[in-house]
């Protein structure tokens, strides 16, 4: 982690003291998106794979939680979140099982296509269950965390826990191998590791973590909308991870903080937010090329 990253976390922890409801809302968004962007950055850090469809897991986790809680009451929250995480894990494993059968570019295309499939199915396939275009309103808060400040601080603690686990994982022997996998896949394979299994593991964990971020988002926001599953959501998550630098542990949170602050600022002036998002992506690609020379993406 960067030297100043703990200060960012400390500043985030002080948000409830400083600002009003608006600052708290932005802070909670940072936590939710930060968790999902960390999932995306984790996948890159450990395998070199880039997913263009993490909205399927992020929004999917939100939908799974919302459906269960809405139909069975707020008391099933722990179960609902667990189910969302398991679904994220399972679908991510199936998807990478298919996508990792050949060249890495197939993984990219498959993640993109899968997220669109989920989006269309939720939006048009089962309007009776998923609410179609309108999404699902009226999702209750988890019991004990009704107070926005409490919910926010609980999320921050969760985020901190995730980052500490991430650090411990990278420091472990398995994590070291996976760090090496990103840098030189062939050598890791020649050393006798089953790289396909390692990639499946990283992808599954990433999907589960993104689903957790979605579950956290819906618990605070109280509704889900098909937009959470759309390609712009995937793009936003990707921009966050890239702006944060992809490789550092802090990438997702730093990126989420910057992008959410920027969105709050820009959307009061213009509704062309996607245009700026696109320009950020292009600029990020360009600067990444300038600063680091060629970097390798898993194949």
């Amino acid at each position, binding site marked *: 982690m960067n030297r100043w990253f703990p200060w960012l976390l400390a500043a985030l922890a002080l948000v409830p003291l400083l600002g009003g409801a608006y600052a708290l809302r932005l802070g909670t968004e940072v936590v939710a998106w930060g968790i999902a962007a960390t999932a995306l950055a984790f996948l890159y850090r450990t395998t070199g794979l*880039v997913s*263009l469809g993490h909205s399927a897991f992020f929004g999917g986790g939100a939908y799974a939680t919302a459906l269960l809680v809405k139909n069975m009451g707020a008391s099933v929250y722990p179960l609902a979140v667990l189910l969302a995480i398991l679904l994220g894990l399972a679908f991510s494993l199936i998807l990478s099982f*298919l*996508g990792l*059968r*050949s*060249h*890495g*570019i*197939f993984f*990219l*295309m*498959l993640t*993109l*296509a*899968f997220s*669109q*499939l989920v989006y*269309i*199915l939720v939006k*048009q*396939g089962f309007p009776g269950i998923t609410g179609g275009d309108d999404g699902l309103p009226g999702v209750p808060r988890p019991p004990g965390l009704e107070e926005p400040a409490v919910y926010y601080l609980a999320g921050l603690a969760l985020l901190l826990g995730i980052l500490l686990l991430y650090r411990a994982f990278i420091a472990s022997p398995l994590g070291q191998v996976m760090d090496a996998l990103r840098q030189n896949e062939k050598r890791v394979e020649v050393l006798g590791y089953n790289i396909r299994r390692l990639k499946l593991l990283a992808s599954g964990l990433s999907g589960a973590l993104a689903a957790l971020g979605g579950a956290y988002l819906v618990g605070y926001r109280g509704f889900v909308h098909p937009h959470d599953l759309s*390609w*712009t959501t995937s*793009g936003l998550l*990707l921009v966050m991870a*890239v702006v944060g630098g992809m490789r550092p542990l802090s990438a997702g949170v730093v990126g989420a903080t910057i992008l959410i602050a920027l969105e709050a600022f820009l959307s009061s002036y213009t509704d*062309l937010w*996607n*245009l700026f*998002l*696109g*320009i*950020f*992506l*292009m*600029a*990020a*690609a*360009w600067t*990444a*090329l300038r600063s680091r020379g*060629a*970097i*390798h*993406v898993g*194949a």
Partner: protein
Amino acid sequence: MEFYLFVLLNGLAYAALLFLLAAGLSLVYGVGRVLHLAHGGFFMLGGYMGYSLYQWTGSFWLALALAPLLALALGLLAERLVRVVYGPERALEQVLFTFGMAFVISDLTRLFWGAQVLGVPPPPALNRPMDLGAVVYPAYPLFLILIGAVVALGLWILMRFTRFGLEVRAAAGHPQMAEALGVPTTQVLQRTYLLGVALAALGGVLAAPRIALAPGLDFTMLILGLIVVVVGGLGSVSGALYGALLVGLADSFGRTFLPQFALAVIFLLMALVLVFRPEGLLGGRR
């Protein structure tokens, strides 16, 4: 029986549009290893420019001829930008860059043409049913099938019998060797890119009377294009052709029998191909 023939012809007409889209996607990847995620954006731009040209000139044929040329001009500009990320071992940057470009095109299109659904009527000469003996079928989709076949034949001749085609195949097969033998691979890639963009825009204009122009069309088409190249195999025209035929037919039959789940049917097709032929149907061969 007539019913199935009807669905089959619908599928072929859709396949023709998908082929125009996917041929460029596949060739650009084959020559430059660049996954051009803004390709759906050029398809949509073609459609919207066709709409404006039609409104302006009142002639579908003029719009059909001019929109790809306009797209070519825009493609020149886009190519200047994409050039920044050309090169081996730059897959991440290329994906980010072209994905960002797709966002930019999507929002600029919404800015210029608005969010309402637009449409172009088919040209009067083709806006009538045709008696095919077994069925009576609208003429416009038949025209699409014809165009698809002509473009496929033209591309095959281009790839098989011209200097440009030879260079494309050389650059796709073995870039370093081609470079060593004096093939200017970067220049070949630029021309391939422009060809792909023009074909996508042509597909967009042709699609305008069949598919409503609305925001989100770019992304829908990009996804279908990607599925086509995954199914057919990346990097070749013939892969795009077979992929487009399969996906077009799967879509047409899917829409008929499972209207809400057409995309799921296509996705299932792709999953099956990935399980049994991970490189696509024609992957590995060029």
